């Protein structure tokens, strides 16, 4: 019996812990790049993308606690209220873990809109936290970050997938 309709999927190798740490480090570095003006409002949240990637693809290694820790680091780096990013990242990680099985069925391009929704949820949480501490609404282009993050998702996740490629296809039928 041939499984004709079964999607051809590569089963990725388990990621090394050091690679996960390195990717998080690089993403944090990218988030801290000094920018001004228009670049600042368009620069996506790379750390959120990488955290989401690991939650979806390695749910046994990454989880809410990792997201929370990364959020705290972002709070210090961004000089915002301690816990603001941590809250958003925890909720985003939770959403990613909830839909993990569903998401991993889709291809990278089809995953992107759903990732965009998760990123938007995170930004809404940050917005709510900001409004509760008495800030003004920062304007609609605040949400552009999510849109750009969504567009970048296929690129980021295919980059992160590279080291987990199975070594050879010699014994594949």
């Amino acid at each position, binding site marked *: 019996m041939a499984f004709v309709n079964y999607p051809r999927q590569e089963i990725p190798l388990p990621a090394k812990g050091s690679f996960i740490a390195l990717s998080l*480090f690089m993403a*944090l*570095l*990218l*988030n*801290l*790049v*000094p*920018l*001004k*003006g228009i670049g*600042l*409002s368009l*620069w996506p949240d790379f750390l959120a993308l990488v955290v989401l990637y690991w939650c979806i693809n390695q749910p046994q290694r990454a*989880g*809410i*606690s990792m997201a*929370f820790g990364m*959020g*705290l*680091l972002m709070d*210090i*780096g*961004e*000089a*915002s*209220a*301690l*816990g*603001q990013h*941590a*809250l958003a990242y*925890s*909720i985003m990680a*939770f959403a990613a*873990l*909830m839909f993990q099985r569903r998401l991993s069925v889709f291809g990278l391009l089809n995953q992107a809109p759903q990732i965009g929704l998760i990123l938007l949820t995170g930004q809404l949480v940050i917005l709510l*936290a*900001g409004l509760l*501490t*008495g*800030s*003004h609404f*920062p*304007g609609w282009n*605040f949400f552009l970050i999510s849109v750009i993050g969504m567009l970048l998702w296929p690129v980021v996740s295919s980059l992160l997938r590279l080291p987990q490629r199975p070594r050879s296809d010699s014994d594949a039928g």
Partner: protein
Amino acid sequence: MLTRLIFFVVLSLVLMAIDTRFKYLAEIRQAFSTVIYPLQKLANVPSTVYERVSEFFPSHSLVEENDHLKQQHLADSGQLQRLMALEAENAQLRKLLQAAQRIEGQAAMAEILHIPRDPFNRKVMLDKGSQSGIQSGQVVVDDAGVVGQITRIYPWMSEVTLITDKDHSVPVQVVRNGLRSVVSGTGKEGALELRYVAVNTDIQEGDLLATSGIDGVYPPGLPVAVVAKIERNSTYVFARVTCAPVAGAGHNRQLLILSLLTPVVEVPAEVLEIKPEKKKREKSGIR
């Protein structure tokens, strides 16, 4: 998984409440900042390298700039000589009047390390901290005027709250007629406002606001903002006065940190004992 989420959500809500209301988490921030600081330095490397490389290649503009600077220097040195004479005269007169001698301001130069993306607060990070003798409450200026005030100190960096931050106010006076007021940030970039200005106050568009110095934190006479728009509506008691800051962290990378002024009036010890919190807030200029 849900319990874990609830745990972390509650934890971050508690952290946020403690951080924004009570400011107890300075130590935790310090510990984390030692992790973040090398990262920020590293993230700055590409732009620093670019600047150094472009400095290395002399260009036509450099010659022009040099000429311009030479002329500027000549003009300035003339003025400086006058200033020195005036300062000597002023000191003499002050001695005669037995007035408190104003201390000369010391300043430290610092570079902007990072501009946070958080749209809810207007802050920048500078690359000097407690290791360079920076203290909380010091005033930060650029070549045009007041930029903000140092609000948090880390070992190697410090956080500046810009005057446009929603929680920041600066006591100012209108240069034209000496009218005193307090200019507050709005949380938006490039916008400040004068609150509680009566409709019939003598204030015009284009008026320059400079620090009044009556708070004992900001040295007097530093330019802060220019009045951009005034809306007078006689149905309201107060006019809406919008101002544009003259300085800005967006213009240049280097900023000056001025030293703290000695308080004009000593605070009695009893007051310190009774309300330590209130006194601290007044000194730092943050409501």
